[in-house]
C-alpha cells in the first residue's frame, strides 16, 4: 500500500543498482554546481578585467625630496593629461590609498614616514581612442623624469583570455554533467529493466500498457534524481563557501573579490529540478523504446 502512487509492481527498493543513481546524480550535480559557481565568478572577473583594459592607465611617479614640489609637479601632470585627447579623467590617488596598495609589498614600512612613497595617478581613458601608454610616458617624461606608465594591457589581455576559456570550460563541464546524468539514467533504467524483465513480462501478460510500466520507472528515476541532486546541491554549498574562503585572498588586488551572488545560488538550486526532469524524461523514453522491442 505504501508507495502505492508509483505502483507496487516493480520492486525497485531491492535493486542495488538504483541505490547508485542518487549518489552518481549527487556527484554530477555537485560538479555542475561548482562549475556554475565558477562560471559566475569567472564572469565577474572577466567583466572587471575587461573594464580595466584600456579604460584605466596607472602612472607612477617617484617621490622627490620635497613634498610641496612633488605636489606641484603632479598638478602640472594632471593638467597635461586632462588636455590629452582620449583622456576622460585623471586623478591623483591620495596618500592613504597608496599606502594601502603598497602595504602587501612593504608591510608596516609602508606607513613609515621615512620611506618616500611614490605618487600614483589613475587615468580613465575613452575606450574608443585611448592614447598608448608610450605616448603618455613620452608626454610626461621631460617634465617628470622617472615616470612609469602602466596600461595593464598585455598582461590583462592574457588574463582575460585565460578567464574567458575557463568560462567555456565551466559551461562545457555543466553540459557534460547533464549528458553524463542522462547516460547514467539510461544505464540504470536498462539495468533495471533487465533485472525486472520477468516482472515486466508478467505485467504485459496480465494486460498492462507500456506507459503503465514506463511511468513506474520514470517516477522512480525522477525521485532518485531529485534525491541525488538535492544531496549534490547540499554538499556543494558548504564546499563553495569554503573555496571562496580559501581563494578569497588570492585575487591580489588584481581581480575583484570572489563573491557568490543571489543569481549564482538560484542557478545552482535550479540544478535540482533540471536533474529530476532529465531523469524523468530519460527513463520514460528509455523504457518505452525498450518495451517497443519486446513482444
Amino acid at each position: 500500500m505504501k508507495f502505492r502512487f508509483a505502483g507496487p509492481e516493480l520492486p525497485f527498493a531491492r535493486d542495488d543498482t538504483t541505490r547508485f543513481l542518487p549518489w552518481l546524480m549527487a556527484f554530477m550535480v555537485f560538479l555542475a554546481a561548482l562549475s556554475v559557481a565558477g562560471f559566475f565568478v569567472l564572469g565577474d572577473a572577466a567583466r572587471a578585467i575587461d573594464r580595466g583594459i584600456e579604460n584605466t592607465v596607472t602612472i607612477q611617479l617617484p617621490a622627490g625630496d620635497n613634498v610641496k614640489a612633488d605636489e606641484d609637479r603632479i598638478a602640472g601632470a594632471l593638467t597635461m593629461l586632462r588636455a590629452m585627447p582620449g583622456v576622460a579623467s585623471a586623478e591623483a590617488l591620495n596618500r592613504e590609498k597608496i599606502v594601502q596598495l603598497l602595504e602587501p609589498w612593504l608591510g608596516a614600512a609602508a606607513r613609515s614616514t621615512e620611506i618616500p612613497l611614490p605618487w600614483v595617478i589613475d587615468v580613465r581613458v575613452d575606450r574608443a581612442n585611448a592614447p598608448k601608454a608610450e605616448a603618455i610616458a613620452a608626454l610626461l617624461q621631460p617634465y617628470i623624469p622617472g615616470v612609469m606608465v602602466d596600461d595593464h594591457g598585455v598582461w590583462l589581455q592574457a588574463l582575460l583570455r585565460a578567464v574567458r576559456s575557463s568560462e567555456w570550460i565551466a559551461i562545457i563541464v555543466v553540459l557534460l554533467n547533464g549528458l553524463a546524468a542522462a547516460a547514467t539514467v539510461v544505464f540504470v533504467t536498462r539495468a533495471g529493466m533487465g533485472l525486472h524483465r520477468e516482472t515486466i513480462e508478467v505485467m504485459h501478460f496480465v494486460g498492462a500498457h507500456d506507459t503503465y510500466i514506463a511511468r513506474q520507472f520514470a517516477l522512480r528515476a525522477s525521485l532518485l534524481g531529485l534525491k541525488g541532486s538535492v544531496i549534490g546541491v547540499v554538499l556543494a554549498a558548504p564546499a563553495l563557501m569554503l573555496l571562496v574562503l580559501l581563494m578569497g585572498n588570492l585575487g591580489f588586488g588584481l581581480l575583484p573579490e570572489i563573491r557568490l551572488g543571489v543569481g549564482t545560488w538560484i542557478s545552482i538550486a535550479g540544478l535540482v529540478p533540471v536533474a529530476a526532469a532529465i531523469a524523468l524524461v530519460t527513463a520514460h523514453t528509455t523504457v518505452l523504446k525498450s518495451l517497443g522491442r519486446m513482444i
Partner: protein
Amino acid sequence: MNDVVQFESVGLRYGMGPEVLQDVTFALDSGSFHFLVGASGAGKSSLLRLMYLAQRPTRGYISLFGRDVSTTPRDDLPALRRKIGVVFQEFRLLAHMSAFDNVALPLRVANVRESEIKRHVEELLVWVGLKDHMKARPSTLSGGQQQRVAIARAVIARPKLLLADEPTGNVDDHIAQRLMHLFDELNKLGTSIVIATHNEAMVRRSGRKVLKLAGGELRVLDNVADDDSDEFASVFAGDRGRILL
C-alpha cells in the same frame, strides 16, 4: 463468427531449429473445454504461448476473439490480453509480492477499485486453500501452494479464454480434482479452456475433448478413447519415441 481462437496453417520454428509446429489449424468455440496432450517437448507450451501472445508464429494466421493478431496494433494488445488468463508451467509469480498482490495484479492493472479487489481475491484464495497464506511471498510457499496462487491469478479477472500449462503437476490428486472443479465452474460461465497436461488419469476421467500434438501436427479428438489404439499409446508416449525403456 463465434470463435475465440482460430489458427490457420500456423507454423513455428525457434531460430534455425526444426519446425516445432507444422500447419496447425483449429478453432475453439467460446465455452469449449479441451485438454492439450503430447509428449514432453511436443510443443504444448509453444502452442499455448502463441495463444497468449508471448510468441509470434513463423507463418500462418492466428486470430483471437475475431481479431487478426498480426495486424493488431501494439496499443490494443493489453485489451486483448486482459481477456486471456494464463497459468504458466513455471508459475511466474512475482517474487517480491505477497500471494494476495500476485492474484490482485490483473485487477490492479485494469484499475479495479481496491475494495472490490480485496473481496474477490480473498474469496478466491480461500477457495484454493490458501486462507492462511495470503500475505506470504511466493518463496515462502510450497510448490503446490505456488501453483494454486498462479491458478488464482489466471482466473481472478474471469477471462474469456483460460490457458493452463500443466496446472496440477505439483499437487496431489485431491487438490487436482478441486482445481478441475474450479475450471469447470469457469467453463460453465462461458470461458473457453485449454489445459496442457501429462496427467493421463485426469484426461480419461473427464471425458473432455483432446488436442493432441505429435510430430508438430495437431489433431482434435472428441475424446482420448476416440484415438485409434496404435496412436493412442503415443499420446502419452515419450519424447517422439526416443525414450523407450
